[in-house]
């Protein structure tokens, strides 16, 4: 089968599945799933850049997604003026100390000869510097956290529209990725995987515990939305008119009183679909923008170089390509895309809950998307993001239904039956693993394999 035909068929299948969900469950559910499909596709694109283009095994996707979520808080929340007033001096001191420590450490590293003396000097500088930083930081933190701890207790954000956080989240993730890449990218694939796994756990630990930054496990709820609220829509005249026009066919058949009733229901249902559609528009534009750039990049000489490095590092190095630098480059770009996805996700949720970041859902599921969709192929990653998210969500009701049917011959109160039905949702992890292994074994390129261009 020709590749573009295959792509079209695969996406048509996804569309059919969504339409079936729309009719069978509701359009509200279908749109909700589709929005998350779009976000998953963005994250999968980020992982695909690192793994598919360059062969870098990043098992820290969760950490970068969480950094994106954090920036949604930092951008959209209003600044807490009292907290800044109480602590800005000390915070400045801590920042200066920290910067000086880093500078001194770099200076020691560059100017001293390698050996025991340098190691000793470096350790001393870092320990002293961090201790000095903590002298400023500790009182600053306690003064920030003591201000209305039940309501705020953190520094707040910049008070900008939340949509800017998608850009900001990308930059934050990119910055952290640069620091990580500088240290970890010299390592071979196995070590890099373990190193990134560790970093993602550390990022989550920081977000959970540094209350002054993100309120930690107290969560930040009620983030401002980039789209209208349902309640405002229901009260606005233009929306009611829109709904009257949209449903005019069915409305004319009713009498006056029934019309009022029906219109009210239409407005309530319509408002939540309208909000979801707004999100869909925003997310889809981001996805299409990133996708276009990725397709361009992968087909450019730069993309060719990346693939050459992936397929044979030594040969590419011998041709004069700076392998480590290119790796750092793609690691930073891919992480930025994951960060954008993370910020979009937190925007959609409207809240930031550090405890909800779990590696199976935020790291390994994204990996399943990339492998199943087709690593090295941008459309494949998008397809994988759509398909795996659909399966992930729908496996729960389907699993419960299967268990109910399968154990139908047992008594209603049978302990085994109750246990099976209650735990059926966990079977989706099993199916995800199965899908990953089947694809890896029987179709290692994924559903839409990488297009290998031949030189003529």
């Amino acid at each position, binding site marked *: 089968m020709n590749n573009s035909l295959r792509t079209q068929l695969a996406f048509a299948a996804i569309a059919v599945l969504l339409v079936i969900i729309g009719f069978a469950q509701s359009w509200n559910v279908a749109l909700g799933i589709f929005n998350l499909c779009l976000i998953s596709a963005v994250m999968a694109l980020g992982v695909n850049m690192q793994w598919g283009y360059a062969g870098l095994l990043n098992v820290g996707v969760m950490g970068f997604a969480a950094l994106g979520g954090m920036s949604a808080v930092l951008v959209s929340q209003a600044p807490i003026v009292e907290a800044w007033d109480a602590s800005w001096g000390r915070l400045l001191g801590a920042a200066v100390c920290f910067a000086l420590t880093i500078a001194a450490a770099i200076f020691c590293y560059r100017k001293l000869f390698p050996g025991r003396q340098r190691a000793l000097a470096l350790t001393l500088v870092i320990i002293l510097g961090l201790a000095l930083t903590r002298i400023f930081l500790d009182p600053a933190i306690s003064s920030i956290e003591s201000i209305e701890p039940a309501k705020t207790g953190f520094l707040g954000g910049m008070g900008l529209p939340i949509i800017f956080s998608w850009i900001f989240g990308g930059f934050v993730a990119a910055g952290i990725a640069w620091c990580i890449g500088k240290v970890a990218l010299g*390592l071979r694939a196995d070590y890099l995987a373990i190193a990134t796994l560790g970093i993602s756990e550390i990022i989550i630990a920081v977000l959970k515990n540094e209350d002054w930054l993100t309120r930690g496990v107290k969560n930040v709820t009620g983030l401002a939305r980039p789209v209208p609220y349902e309640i405002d829509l229901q009260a606005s005249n233009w929306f009611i008119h829109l709904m009257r026009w949209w449903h005019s066919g069915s409305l004319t058949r009713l009498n006056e009183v029934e019309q009022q009733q029906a219109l009210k229901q239409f407005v309530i249902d319509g408002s939540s679909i309208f909000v979801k559609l707004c999100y869909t528009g925003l997310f889809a534009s981001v996805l299409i923008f990133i996708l276009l750039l990725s397709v361009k990049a992968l087909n450019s000489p730069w993309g060719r170089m990346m693939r050459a490095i992936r397929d044979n590092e030594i040969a590419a190095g011998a041709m004069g390509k700076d392998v480590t630098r290119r790796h750092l480059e793609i690691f930073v770009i891919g992480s930025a895309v994951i960060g954008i996805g993370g910020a979009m996700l937190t925007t959609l949720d409207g809240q930031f809950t550090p405890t909800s970041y779990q590696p199976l859902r935020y790291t390994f599921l994204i990996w399943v998307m990339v492998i199943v969709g087709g690593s090295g192929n941008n459309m494949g990653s998008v397809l994988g993001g759509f398909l795996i998210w659909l399966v992930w969500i729908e496996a729960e009701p389907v699993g419960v239904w299967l268990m109910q049917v399968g154990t139908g011959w047992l008594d209603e109160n049978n302990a085994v039956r109750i246990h099976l039905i*209650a735990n059926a949702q966990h079977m989706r992890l099993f199916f995800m693993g199965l899908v990953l292994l089947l694809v*890896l074994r029987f179709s290692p390129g994924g559903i839409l394999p990488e297009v290998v261009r031949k030189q003529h």
Partner: protein
Amino acid sequence: MEAGTDLASAVVLLLNFVVVPGLAYGSQLALGALGITLVFGILRFANFAHGDTMAFGTMITILVTWWLQSQGVNLGPLPTALLALPAGILLTIALLVITDKTVYRYYRHHKAVPVTFMIASMGVMFMTNGIVRFVIGPNDQRFLDGERFIIRARDFKTMTGLSEGLSIKLSQGLTIVIAIVLVALLFWFLQKTRMGKAMRAYSDNEDLALLSGVDPDKVVLVTWIITAILATIAGTLYGLDKSFKPFTYLQLLLPMFAAAIVGGIGNPIGAIVGGYVIAFSEVVVTYAYKKVFVYLLPVSMEPDGLLQLLSTDYKFAVSFVILVLVLLVRPTGIMRGKLL
């Protein structure tokens, strides 16, 4: 109080909160890291499914323990789980052998690159995790019974007359004893038996071992069996000492990897050293030393803060920082394992 008893109290305090928990946790990590390092040495990939293998073995042990308890069987002062361990080990061996036959063997015969094995192990991780959550649920399970303590803090205080007590949980004592016995057995097996020598030869130089008539399928089979034994016992001991929760076992993956790499991956002695290094650094860095210094320093110099270097929530960070430092300074690990 006299200076002598103050010093003794400080030492007991450190023993109670640093040394004993560190030894127990280190033994659990070492057993887990041994499994990872064996799989790496023989099959040459980092096994992401190892944490969930531990969870699976522990789950079977817990289920059998509950059944034994319901039958009124127990081991007196010892936890019933010890009686259930063989069942857990057997089923875990079955699980690992089946995954090898259905998943890894294909890639081995096709000489796939290590990264493919790693991604396959992610799939196995998902499936095992799904089974564990499906059967026993995602929540905390307790299955400890029998005597709780070897020494209670109060008894220790009355015995010695010190103001600080030392308590050693039975599970901690068991962990250390079982770990020593297991490690001794493992080294005897690797050094003295024909199979063990074949495994070491295979790990050292695959082609040469094959030429000398080593049966690769047998070596791999034995590796999985040993891994299953180690993983089940490590998981059960951890569950007895703390508690069983599938998610915690997934999180153990990082310190275990760190232990294996820090010690020198592929090197069994290194895995043990690494386990204790990681465990002790986690405990030492996250312990609040205020009370120790209260005993050691005169009243006028009493510290204000908790004197805690890092909050306990950052223990992952500790294992990770050590990992990075070792990778930068000495990439082969402390005991000179294989350079990846």
